[in-house]
């Protein structure tokens, strides 16, 4: 409170550090007197060191603080000396020791002034360690920390992007409130920096500033908005992370960037992918319609598709009448589909967090029929570290409750190993129990039987409970289970017996009449079982069903009355219950016993038991004062109790977003964003359209079809259109078939699917992977050249196609020609527009990057999507299919509408593969067949070293880097590779 004057006094002396000293003045009032004084002296020392003004004697002379200070200094005198020396090696040594202290959690804050003046040290390692120190202690020594800031401010202007970035990074990590304006300014500047790396750092700085001063939120949101528009993969992950932390509810900021994020996703670094996918899951929940809204219908379809075949034609036929029959057919928003398609390959990521993120996205967003594909990836995660298993199993447990079918094929992967930690075993049991149904219950029970013999007692108890749950859920095996459990009653391990008793009790409640012998058997057990819960369960059973065991029950009560005082509380309560029930049914024999028990209970130490005794006595023993209730005592005690429902603890967990911390804890964690429910009607999809400048090829199609849903005649077409590229051609409906059936199917199915993937997102993402900063300028000159070349190639390839594709009708051929004309025109007319340039950027990238693709195919495929107005879409989709089959060589597959099916191509998987091999070679031979001998007959050479020599390709390398004018030759390597793989 007394600091301000002193500070303001110092301000003029540091004329060069205007902003800093100004800031100082504001904050100092908050620091405590002693500390302020101490820091003052230190800062003066610093100024001395710098050769500044050496004439402030008054600062270090506050007697109180000086005392503290000197003792502090004695402790680290040597370190201070080393830091003050001129030798870098000494400084480094000192810094290393200080960092080691920090690491061990020792307090090194008193060295702050000595350290901070080395912030401008030339030695890079010293500098780094000073940064480490600074970030750790700046919060505690706010005023002194300010002295370092000018260094960073200088760094922000450095011509080297890495220095700019690191300066911003440290500056933003110093949690000192008074530099908020400086930070804000720095972030704003960095957000429009040339270098994507600096922009990334800016994105990282946003949440730091936000946590420091939440009032900056509005300004920060502006920066986020700006950075969200960034097109580089480096920035995407970081800015979405900032978005999630600062303004997760501003979903409107995402609209314009949605498609871009989807397309960039695959090339963003792993951690960014997780954040983006989680955010997009929430976004999709607000923007798209529930794909499972027609649950029953879809289910039927998918079920059939599941078992029949993945022949797309078949499915189309089924799906179409079905959807037409409906009043309001569900059509998936293309953007929704885009998201699903672009995330799917990430299931193959090595990073468990990414896989889990995609899995939850599919679980929450995908049509029921497609969710199945995530099962395999999740099962793979089960082979990872036990912590990963733990989290995955929790999520699988939740999923199995809702979508059991998904994991049934992987039942055996959840079998328990003796080396699993107990917590994993118990989760696996949970999953196995959830997966149990009529067909697999016998194998599961056999498995459970072996578990019961385990040495891990907690696990055994859980296994017995699992058996109980299976028995309640699946009626057919109830008796088998019950018999098995009764056998366990003679087990030597008391815990096993006790657990069995508890479970049997629950089971018996379901059908007590038939099992009086079991009750008798259990009554005999009570002498031997010591576990309170089990004793209580037996007593309860006898009391409840005392009519079934009229002779034994009073005897049990007699025995229990003898031991009453030594029993545990829960057992005592049950003894009282038993006594009361017997009194009501068989008062002649048990009247005295009951009195005795109640008297004992009356003087028990536990008040619950005393209360219970008093209450029951009033209720059952008729006295003149007894109230109206005693009439109903029998009804009260011997009412039929509903059998307990044994259900999973994971039952309602799916209202939390899967994979989240909240889901794991089954409680809301701080900062958890609720997963919104699907909207009733879809919000306007056009919000995601982007102005021409940022045009992605997909966007063009969408912007140009504003009035789809209006007229019905178009609607049909639209349906077809959306159905074709999205459902049939891409992984769409065939998804579940792939995963559920064996690999044999997926061969043909998935390849066609992914081929279309390639065309859609591949281009975008590949672009970013190889993006160079300078390429934009070169685009324009190049694109004309490219275009011509492309055309030539298409022509060159056509004869080949004709020979290879016997089924290709001449009609399509014509159409193709027509299309090409259109294409030509288009390229001419649009060449000036912005869109064109961005588009050609894609393509040039594509060419360089996807060298190995048969490039013509891709380009052709891409063109239809990007350029054609809606009316041609039908044609295109057909076209696309054809192209696809060219690529994948499923040439036995008919074109959709033109030739109404050479139907039912049920080929055995082996035949399919043969065919594929065949057609592959066809295709290769056709165009420029340069299959070098490098492909050798490798399949004969077991365990061999293969040597490849490569000569050519010198020219291709630059193309790979960026989009320089590459001399484009048909690339032979593609075919060689293919050939190899087809053998």
């Amino acid at each position, binding site marked *: 409170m007394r600091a301000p004057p002193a500070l303001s006094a110092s301000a003029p002396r540091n004329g060069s550090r205007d902003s800093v000293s100004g800031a100082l003045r504001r904050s100092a009032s908050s620091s405590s007197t002693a500390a302020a004084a101490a820091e003052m002296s230190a800062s003066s020392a610093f100024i001395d060191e710098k050769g500044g003004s050496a004439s402030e004697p008054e600062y270090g002379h506050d007697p109180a603080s000086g005392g503290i200070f000197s003792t502090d200094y004695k402790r680290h005198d040597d370190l201070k000396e080393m830091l003050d020396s001129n030798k870098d090696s000494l400084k480094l040594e000192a810094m290393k020791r200080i*960092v080691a202290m920090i690491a061990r959690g020792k307090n090194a804050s008193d060295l702050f002034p000595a350290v901070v003046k080395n912030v401008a040290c030339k030695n890079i390692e010293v500098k780094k360690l000073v940064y480490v120190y600074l970030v750790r202690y700046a919060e505690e020594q706010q005023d002194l920390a300010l002295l370092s800031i000018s260094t960073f401010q200088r760094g922000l202007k450095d011509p080297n992007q890495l220095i700019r970035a690191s300066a911003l990074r440290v500056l933003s990590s110093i949690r000192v409130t008074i530099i908020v304006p400086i930070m804000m300014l720095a972030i704003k500047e960095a957000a429009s920096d040339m270098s994507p790396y600096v922009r990334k750092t800016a994105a990282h700085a946003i949440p730091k500033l936000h946590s420091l001063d939440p009032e900056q939120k509005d300004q920060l949101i502006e920066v986020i908005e700006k950075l969200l528009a960034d097109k580089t993969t480096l920035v995407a992950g970081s800015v979405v992370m900032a978005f999630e932390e600062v303004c997760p509810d501003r979903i409107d900021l995402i609209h314009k960037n949605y498609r871009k994020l989807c397309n960039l996703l695959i090339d963003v670094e792993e951690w960014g992918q997780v954040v983006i996918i989680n955010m997009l899951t929430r976004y999709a929940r607000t923007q798209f319609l529930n794909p499972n809204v027609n649950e029953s219908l879809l289910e039927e379809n998918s079920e059939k598709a599941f078992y029949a075949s993945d022949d797309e034609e078949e499915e189309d036929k089924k799906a179409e009448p079905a959807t037409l029959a409906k009043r309001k057919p569900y059509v998936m928003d293309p953007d929704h589909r885009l998201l699903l398609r672009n995330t799917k390959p990430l299931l193959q990521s090595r990073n468990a967090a990414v896989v889990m993120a995609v899995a939850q996205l599919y679980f929450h967003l995908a049509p029921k029929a497609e969710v199945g594909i995530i099962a395999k990836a999740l099962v793979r995660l089960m082979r990872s570290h036990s912590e990963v298993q733990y989290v995955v199993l929790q999520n699988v447990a939740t999923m199995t409750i809702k979508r059991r079918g998904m994991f049934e094929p992987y039942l055996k992967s959840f079998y328990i190993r003796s080396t699993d930690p107990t917590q994993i075993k118990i989760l696996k049991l949970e999953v196995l129990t959830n997966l149990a149904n009529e067909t697999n219950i016998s194998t599961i029970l056999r498995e459970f039987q072996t578990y019961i013999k385990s040495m891990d007692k907690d696990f055994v108890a859980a296994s017995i409970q699992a058996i109980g749950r299976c028995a309640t859920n699946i009626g057919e095996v109830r008796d088998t289970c019950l018999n098995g459990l009764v056998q366990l009653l003679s087990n030597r391990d008391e815990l096993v017996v006790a657990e069995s008793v508890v479970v049997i009790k629950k089971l018996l409640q379901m059908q007590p009449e038939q099992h009086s012998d079991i009750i008798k058997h259990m009554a005999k057990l009570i002498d031997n079982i010591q576990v309170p819960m089990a004793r209580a369960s037996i007593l309860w059973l006898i009391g409840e069903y005392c009519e079934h065991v009229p002779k034994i029950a009073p005897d049990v009560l007699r025995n229990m009355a003898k031991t009453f005082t030594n029993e545990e509380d829960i057992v005592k309560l049950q003894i009282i219950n038993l006594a009361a029930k017997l009194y009501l049914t068989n008062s002649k024999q048990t009247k005295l016993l009951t009195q005795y028990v109640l008297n004992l209970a009356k003087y028990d130490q536990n008040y619950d038991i005393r209360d219970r005794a008093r209450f029951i006595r009033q209720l059952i023993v008729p006295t003149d004062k007894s109230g109206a209730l005693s009439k109903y005592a029998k009804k009260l005690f011997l009412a039929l109790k509903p059998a307990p429902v044994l259900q999973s603890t994971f039952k309602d967990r799916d209202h939390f977003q899967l994979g989240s911390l909240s889901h794991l804890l089954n409680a809301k964690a701080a900062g958890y964003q609720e997963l919104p429910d699907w909207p009733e009607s879809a919000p306007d999809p056009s919000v995601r359209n982007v102005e021409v400048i940022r045009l992605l090829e997909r966007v063009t199609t969408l912007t140009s079809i504003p009035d789809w849903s209006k007229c019905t005649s178009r609607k049909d077409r639209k349906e077809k259109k959306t159905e074709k590229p999205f459902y049939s051609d891409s992984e769409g409906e065939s998804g579940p078939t792939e995963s559920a059936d064996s690999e044999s199917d997926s061969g043909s199915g998935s390849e066609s699917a992914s081929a279309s993937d390639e065309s859609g997102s591949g281009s975008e993402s590949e672009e970013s992977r190889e993006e160079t900063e300078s390429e934009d300028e070169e685009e324009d000159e190049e694109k004309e050249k490219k275009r011509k070349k492309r055309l030539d190639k298409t022509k060159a390839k056509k004869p080949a196609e004709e020979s290879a594709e016997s089924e290709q009708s001449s009609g399509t051929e014509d159409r193709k020609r027509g299309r090409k004309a259109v294409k030509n025109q288009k390229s001419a007319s649009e060449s000036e527009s912005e869109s064109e340039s961005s588009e050609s950027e894609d393509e040039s990238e594509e060419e360089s990057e996807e060298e190995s693709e048969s490039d013509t195919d891709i380009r052709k495929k891409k063109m239809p999507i990007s350029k054609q107005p809606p009316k041609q879409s039908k044609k295109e989709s057909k076209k696309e299919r054809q192209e696809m089959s060219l*690529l994948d060589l499923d040439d036995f597959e008919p074109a959709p509408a033109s030739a109404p099916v050479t139907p039912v191509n049920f080929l055995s998987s082996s035949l399919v593969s043969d065919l594929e091999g065949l057609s592959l070679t066809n295709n290769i031979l056709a165009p420029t067949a340069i299959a070098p001998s490098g492909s050798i007959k490798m399949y004969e050479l077991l365990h061999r070293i293969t040597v*490849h020599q490569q000569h050519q390709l010198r020219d291709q390398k630059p193309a790979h880097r960026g989009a320089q004018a590459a001399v484009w030759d048909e690339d032979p390597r593609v075919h060689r590779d293919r050939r190899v793989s087809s053998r």
Partner: protein
Amino acid sequence: MIHSLFLINNAGDLFLEKHWKSVISRSVCDYFFEAREKAVEPDNVPPVIRTPHHYLINIYREKIFFVSVIQTEVPPLFVIEFLHRVAETFQDYFGECSESTIKDNVVIVYELLEEMLDNGFPLATESNILKELIRPPTILRSMVNTITGSSNVGETLPTGQLSTIPWRRAGVKYTNNEAYFDVVEEIDAILDKSGTTVFAEIQGVIDACVKLSGMPDLTLSFMNPRLLDDVSFHPCVRYKRWESERVISFVPPDGNFQLMSYHISAQNLVAIPVYVKQNISFFETGSSGRLDITVGPKQTMGKTVEGLVVTVHMPKVVLSANLNATQGTYNYDPVTKILVWDIGKLNPQKLPNLKGSLSLQSGAPKPEENPSLNIDLKIQQLAISGRLGSFISVGCDSLPAGPCDKALLLLTLF
């Protein structure tokens, strides 16, 4: 995201702490210690612990607990995966990830942690970038450093961080361009008492060591990719190309990395190379038991089985074992109740056998279950999935720039 990290050894000593945001007192770890005590085995500590103000997410690796402190919602796997990445980075840098190596290299550890996270969000986790930023310690370098006073921190700025191929550092140059690929396959099988396979699957990984100059672009194709049931890739692999052509196409990181892992579930392919005859029985009286284990080759395809180790988890009541092994050595640890029989090479002519008696705690009831056996073995030069590995071919799409016109790619299998 990740707020702080504490490293705690098995004895419960907290030996390193790092904070990425404001400092959180280490007393927060008390909740962890509590859970640790409750769990008995370190394996059983719940990975996520809830405390009134924080969440602790921890992993247990190499006898060290990595305990991270979280304050807000974050996918738990995100943190777990990151912590494992940290442990792997330490392993990569120091050869092993143990308490002593971490303590010895505390400054490097600190620098690494500083680079790996920024404000709790992962920044640079690729080993190629990290090594550019902070050079791993070598004996030679540490000697030079002490003499010259030079440092471990790279003088160059990490250009890799700027590129969109963050896993590869720029400007790599080798005089010999080589690439090695190791295929390692593991069978994971559960057999029942009679030796019938309950469950079996093959898991494989392809480890690569690529030392190529420039920006090589490689492809790897399998003759029979259909066998691969499930794969996961290093981020450098182009997913699209795999999906469309079943070819693995990638720009490799420099040095060692795991290219992919795969999984083969087709049961008929899984040939279990050895069989085990076991007879372990406990007598009703006399508190003793008998043990008799024989291991023999089954389907080894003419290869020798090496590194054969049989591990038996004995029941708690077994006090000691008095056995006689015809081959190898055995060791029974009465504390952990684990019997380890290290056989070594399997000789098909003379099958190894372990026979003898077990003495039990007197008075205790006889254990009712036969203990489970774990068998570890190695077979060189054999891919269990047979048809897969032998058909691998490697191509090179773009060749390293360098003085040589021809680059030679060597591929070794197994």
